């Protein structure tokens, strides 16, 4: 359980700050998903094994939902995208439940007397933790083990990507003119309002995910500071980490699917 909200450790590249903890954990989520899928689908059998049943259930459920939204042929086309989105968000939401301590590898801790963040020589070595006073000379601090979706950039990035998917596939399916005409619906001067309502979906869907995960994390930190060892934090992690995480992943994937389906008309 984390004691306080720690800012990410930004890595400055090309004039932008990258939170490498978020990047590392989300790449790890993707690798775990690839590994699980590869392992489970290595030996497919007609009578499915235990893990095959689980994966088939997930794929089957999203297959049904995609076909309901897009129609039979196009539903299969969008199924990998929507299914992967759900699985990735699901794993990204619940991965914070796994307790991983924040490790510091190598180097020696010294007391940063003048507070400049560098080892100047003459500063005593201590056992103080990484923080206000203790600084590590050399070595490497592992990033905080946090849900990637707790960082607003991840839901916003995904929402922008799916906004692009929706509008690019709308242009490809309906043609440029028919797509542009949908902005003047029902009358041409409604165009600004239509534009806002198309963007509002992406805003609400990303902030819903971020707010739920971030709010849950803050509540867990507050409660575990109030009662350190009563075991209630475990129940809270079950509720905010697992229950809310699964539901918000489902909501995020379903809503993005519906936003695409609204732009792309059903043909068959």
């Amino acid at each position, binding site marked *: 359980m984390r004691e306080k*909200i720690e800012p990410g450790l930004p890595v400055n590249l090309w004039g932008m700050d990258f939170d490498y903890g978020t990047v590392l954990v989300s790449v790890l989520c993707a690798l775990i998903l690839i590994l699980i899928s590869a392992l489970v689908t290595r030996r497919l059998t007609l009578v499915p094994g235990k893990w095959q049943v689980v994966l088939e259930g997930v794929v089957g459920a999203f297959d049904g939902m995609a076909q*309901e*939204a897009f129609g039979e042929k196009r539903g299969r086309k969008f199924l990998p995208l929507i299914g992967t989105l759900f699985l990735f968000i699901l794993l990204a939401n619940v991965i914070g439940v796994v307790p991983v301590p924040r490790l510091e590898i190598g180097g020696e801790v010294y007391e940063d007397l003048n507070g400049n963040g560098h080892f100047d020589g003459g500063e005593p070595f201590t056992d103080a933790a990484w923080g206000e006073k203790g600084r590590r000379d050399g070595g490497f601090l592992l990033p905080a083990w946090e849900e990637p979706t707790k960082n607003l950039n991840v839901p916003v990035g995904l929402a922008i990507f799916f906004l692009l998917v929706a509008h690019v596939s709308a242009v490809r399916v309906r043609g440029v003119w028919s797509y542009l005409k949908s902005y003047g619906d029902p009358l041409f001067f409604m165009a600004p309002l239509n534009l*806002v*309502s198309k963007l*509002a*979906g992406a*805003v*609400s869907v990303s*902030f*819903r995910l*971020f*707010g*739920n995960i*971030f*709010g849950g994390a*803050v509540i867990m930190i507050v409660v575990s500071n109030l009662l350190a060892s009563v075991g209630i934090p475990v129940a809270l992690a079950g509720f905010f980490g697992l229950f809310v995480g699964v*539901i*918000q992943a*489902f*909501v995020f994937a*379903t*809503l993005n699917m*519906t936003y695409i*389906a*609204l732009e792309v008309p059903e043909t068959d």
Partner: protein
Amino acid sequence: MPDTEFLVTVAAYLGAGYAVGMGALGPAVGPGYTAGLAQEGMSRQVMRQGAIFRMMVLGQALSQTAGVLALVIGFVLIFARGGGEGLDKAAALLGAGFSVGTAAVGVGIGNGLSTGMACAAAARHPKHFGGIQQAMLVGTAVSQSTGIYAFVISLLLILYS
């Protein structure tokens, strides 16, 4: 006359309290209404309980959005309101809390009405489940957009005051 930095803190705390308190009012009434209608529907369509339950959870998550936006503004007001002093900054922070909190009442109740009626409709016509769900999503998205306007204005008030 207290100094203005103190006033800014007072305004931020007032705004955060109002935002999250009002943000609890709407998103509590709305999803509660949805749950009630969904349970009635489940008692009528015993064979379709799973589908109605799924629609209820989706609808409740939708009507809860305004509360989550109020929560985010509350966090920003408490932890990350930025520097600055003066009566105008205090008024901006108070206004941000008022805006998102009051919007959450209407959006939460309105969305709850929409999603609750969708659950009832799905229980009455289980064959048209997909169409009802799509109409529910579009309807709630439209009714939510005003709440999102309030949220955007709140963020602008905090960031650019």
